[in-house]
């Protein structure tokens, strides 16, 4: 054939990179990396209307009270506070107080690492043991969502730090545990054993807001 002598036609591909760059930049700009992160919470089941609300038999010392009113003023254990910096440590000390010395709490106490044992003050006016301790958090309908999240964050942070310390992880590493993996699940249950996350969020009062 006569073709053999001819040069093969070529497509000029030097601008390929430019085209790809253009597409890349388009996707870079339009991408919103999915923000599927946040504070998780399990709501309590709906109260049965036929049953009277259960009597609260807990001792005052086992309840750590946080109240926020509609102008975002915060009351922690009946003390007005202006910022939340000390809250996390207060909660940790409250939960780890071990005020009541009995067999059950001592067994739990002995499983703790030294860093957590140091927080146990065994005070009479603070919680009996971590299982009994409850953090009660009550906001108002007029409270800012921002403040609410800020406090909830500190409360969960205190618990995650305790859980992390029990198994030798940081709070971040503990939260990242994947409960579908058996190894991680084991660590997770070991950390939470005897330490339920007793954060009770009361229905907000209706003084402020709509």
């Amino acid at each position, binding site marked *: 054939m006569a073709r053999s002598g001819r040069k093969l036609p070529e497509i000029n*591909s030097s601008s*390929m*990179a430019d085209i*790809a*760059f253009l*597409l*890349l930049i388009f*996707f*870079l700009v*339009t*991408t*919103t*990396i*999915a*923000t*599927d*992160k*946040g*504070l*998780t*919470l*399990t*709501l*309590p*089941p*709906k109260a049965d209307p036929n049953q009277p609300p259960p009597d609260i038999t807990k001792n005052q010392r086992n309840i750590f009270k946080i109240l926020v009113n509609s102008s975002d003023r915060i009351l922690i254990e009946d003390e007005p506070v202006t910022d939340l910096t000390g809250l996390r440590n207060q909660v940790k000390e409250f939960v780890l107080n071990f005020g009541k010395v009995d067999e059950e709490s001592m067994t739990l106490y002995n499983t703790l690492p030294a860093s957590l044992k140091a927080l146990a003050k065994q005070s009479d006016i603070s919680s009996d043991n971590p299982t009994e301790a409850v953090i009660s958090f009550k*906001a*108002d*309908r*007029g*409270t*800012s*969502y*921002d403040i*609410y*999240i*800020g406090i*909830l*964050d500190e409360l*969960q*942070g205190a618990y*995650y730090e305790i859980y992390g310390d029990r198994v030798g992880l940081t*709070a971040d590493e503990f*939260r*990242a545990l*994947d*409960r*579908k993996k058996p190894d991680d699940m084991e660590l997770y249950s070991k950390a939470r054993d005897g330490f339920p996350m007793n954060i009770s969020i009361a*229905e*907000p009062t209706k003084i*402020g*807001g*709509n």
Partner: protein
Amino acid sequence: MAKFKKKSNTSQDIPTAALPDIIFMLLFFFMVTTVLRESTIMVKQSIPKATQLRKLEQKKLVSYMYVGKPNDVNKFGAEPKIQANDAFIEIDGIIQFIEEEKGKLAENEKDQITISIKVDDETKMGIVADIQEKMRDVNARKLMYAASRRSEE
């Protein structure tokens, strides 16, 4: 002093023939990881910051609700509203919305539905409390307050 060879015979050019391939690889990475937003958000969304974030474990069990001041204040007013999918819903519509979302899941997963609420940080707690109340009514008890990361000091 040691003598340095000034010139080598090897070519000094960096071959750029593979550049398009590298760029394409990046491009595909972004194309795959991009989640195109399914619905336009019609409320103001400035998500609060928090530190103790957790990731959602199973994405298919998650439904989203957006709460905030409507962008179009003239049309919808300045009071915070709830958006689910593409429309505003009232407090009473939440039950219906959650039931619909539950209907999309398999029977054994219905109780595991997670509602992620993305609430603007200027919102007051009242509307959030109403949502929680309705969620409890339909036994959808897993809740996530969407938040973005704040670096710990």
